[in-house]
């Protein structure tokens, strides 16, 4: 090999190694940042890991939203009609958060069974239902849970 070629080979090898290392780290970080989605039924069945950021979703149960009298912490229940779970959140709820509406929450499941959310998402369209929630309701319905038919036309 001429010196020039050797130089070029070195450059290519260095680039490949660099990109390889970068890709390795990136994929590791990627796996750590994946957030899986769980329905209240799956959480009740103990399938959801605690201590890792996950997403849960369902319809906000009517009459379940309770705000602590002085402060911004709020508790509410979400349901897929088969099971119900309680979500705790401190902060300002999104504009479209309403009882009876489908929402998705990011956060961690604590060992005592409460879900502490760091973010609550309600979509900017009252006819819209997060697809995960829609699918969860469908599955729960198929499994024979008694789903009421009056959900404001939001059933898929």
């Amino acid at each position: 090999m001429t010196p020039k070629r050797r130089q070029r080979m070195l450059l290519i090898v260095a680039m490949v190694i660099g990109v390889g290392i970068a890709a390795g780290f990136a994929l590791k970080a990627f796996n750590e940042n994946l957030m899986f989605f769980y329905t209240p039924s799956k959480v009740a069945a103990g399938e959801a890991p605690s201590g890792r950021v996950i997403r849960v979703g369902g319809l906000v149960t009517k009459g379940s939203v309770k705000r602590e009298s002085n402060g911004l912490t709020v508790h509410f229940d979400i349901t897929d009609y088969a099971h119900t779970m309680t979500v705790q959140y401190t902060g300002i709820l999104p504009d479209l958060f309403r009882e009876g509406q489908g929402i998705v929450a990011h956060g961690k499941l604590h060992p005592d069974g409460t879900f502490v959310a760091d973010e609550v998402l309600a979509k900017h369209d009252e006819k819209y239902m997060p697809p995960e929630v829609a699918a969860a309701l469908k599955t729960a319905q198929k499994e024979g849970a008694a789903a009421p038919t009056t959900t404001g036309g939001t059933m898929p």
Partner: protein
Amino acid sequence: MIPELGHFALILSLCLALVLAIFPMVGSLTNTPAWIALARPTAIGQFCFTLLAFACLVYAFLTNDFSVAYVAQNGNTLLPTIYKISAVWGAHEGSLLLWALILTGWTTAVALFSRKLPDVMLARVLSVMGMVSIGFMSFLLFTSNPFARVFPVPAQGGDLNPLLQDPGLAIHPPMLYMGYVGMSVAFSFAIAALIGGKLDATWARWTRPWTTVAWVFLTIGITLGSWWAYNELGWGGWWFWDPVENASFMPWLAATALVHSLAVTEKRGAFKRWTVLLSLLAFSLSLLGTFLVRSGVLTSVHSFAADPARGLFILVFLSIVIGGSLLLYAWRAPDVTSGGRFDLLSRETLLLGNNLLLVVIDAFIVLGTLAPLIYDAMGWGKISVGFPWFTTMFVIFTPFLVLIMGLGPLTRWKHQDPAQLARQMKIALAVAIAAGLIAGLPILHGGSWQAGLAVALSVWLLASLTLSLRQRGRTLDGVRDWLKSFRNRGGGSYYGMIVAHLGVAVFIIGITFATQFSQQEDVRLSPGQSYTLAGYAFRFDGVKSVPGPNYRADRGTITITRGTDQVATLHPEKRTYTVQTKPMTESGIDIGVFRDLYVSMGESLGDGDWSLRLYYKPFVRWIWLGGIMIAIGGLLAALDRRYRIALQPQAETAQPAGKQHLAPGVST
């Protein structure tokens, strides 16, 4: 009557697209001058008919013609006029019509401003654009007709989504689309060149201004989108790594790589195949973006109602465009001669590094954006990729990009003496490290290595650009000479580069400081109560109910004081739009060069108490200022005089061997 006229005009436009796609292309291959000559008038005709269709839809909105289904869904008699016009592209059908209009607009622009292009080449370029146009026109007519009628005619329209009733969003989609669709020009030039088998510096010189202009629009579009999100979404963020934002950022990264790679192809005749591939990639990513947004496969604030037929159509179209162009590339690219050689240390190598890094960042963003789709399709579960991942990926690679960016302008083409470069950059490096250390020291803001790094990188850029300007300034004498140098060939490109790279420096400071030193607090306040954040006292003075044209608002009053000085009085609002009954947060922002104070209203908690979200955001304006500077830089480069003076066929740069080392700073 008018809507039918619009519909008819659209059909005619599709027919013209068919003519444009077939005749000039066949004519260019069989050498039939009459067919080649069809290209220009057909392109212009197609634009006129699409414009007519668009005008008809605007008219329908202005006259509140609710017999048109699209107007009935998105229009309203109470909408202010500006939003009646922006409602035209406020939802799926109309925004596609805007897309088609812009596509034919770009086609016409190429037809009109490329008089110097050989007829055969022009015919092929326009023809390829005609093919793309067939795809969009049939998509419009067969799956998303904006002129479909509805019966019985509703008395009132469904109103424009309140989120979109914002001046920023009225112009954000047109700008973004100008960028997206503008990539079709680079794509068409690449395809035409592949068909003709002639990929050389002349081709790069033809493509370059078009690509740069499209890239400028894309930059402006993304910047505006970010600014709108900050103003309108009410939680102080300016970038969310939302799939739809990524949809615009992916082609932007590819286009940025393309803009730089085209420089090498034009100046040195190198990287030809790579440049072609990037042209194909940039447009494919634009189409992928459209697919992601329009098919509703990814859910986000932007996606409208999902419709499987529409998704399938775009998917098929996407595969034809990407598959077809790659096939053509595979067939033709081996014939392309490799260009000028260069040494390990040369501007070419640095630009190669720039391209590599940009493409790697782009690949990770594509991965993160498409992963939820792939996981779902494979039955691995429903996932979403966390915000921090994207940020990490971006932050890891950007410093390397900036290091290269600092070296680039001072490095010679083809061969650079390392010792000489080191001598020049010594001062820049020292100044950058010193500035970074000072900024990172614990005495300021409690110490943040991120802030230190950001300052070091920005100062590095600033110093190297100053060195480059000084080097260039040595041959200039006085202001008049300097102005003249701006108007010289290559002047626009050079100063454009300086402004755009300075924009990057400003942008880096903006995002790092805004992220590192932001303070936010969700608080519950009774009237008269205050909360102090970052040394500013926010006093809540209660809420009043006020009417708007098509909404009612609870308007809060917040008085901000610092020490004894009154800083600002803000009026954030919580609006309820009468038709769609959606609550909307309108934040109150006190704008400043070095900090924004931002208040948005949560909800009424009884007894006059409200939950409020307070923010102190330092340097957040710098983010958009950087974006604007990058766009201005691009504009200067596109206006370079050398693109407008007569092109000598086979520009001198096509034979790099006969050319001595170009002095740095003389050209980009």
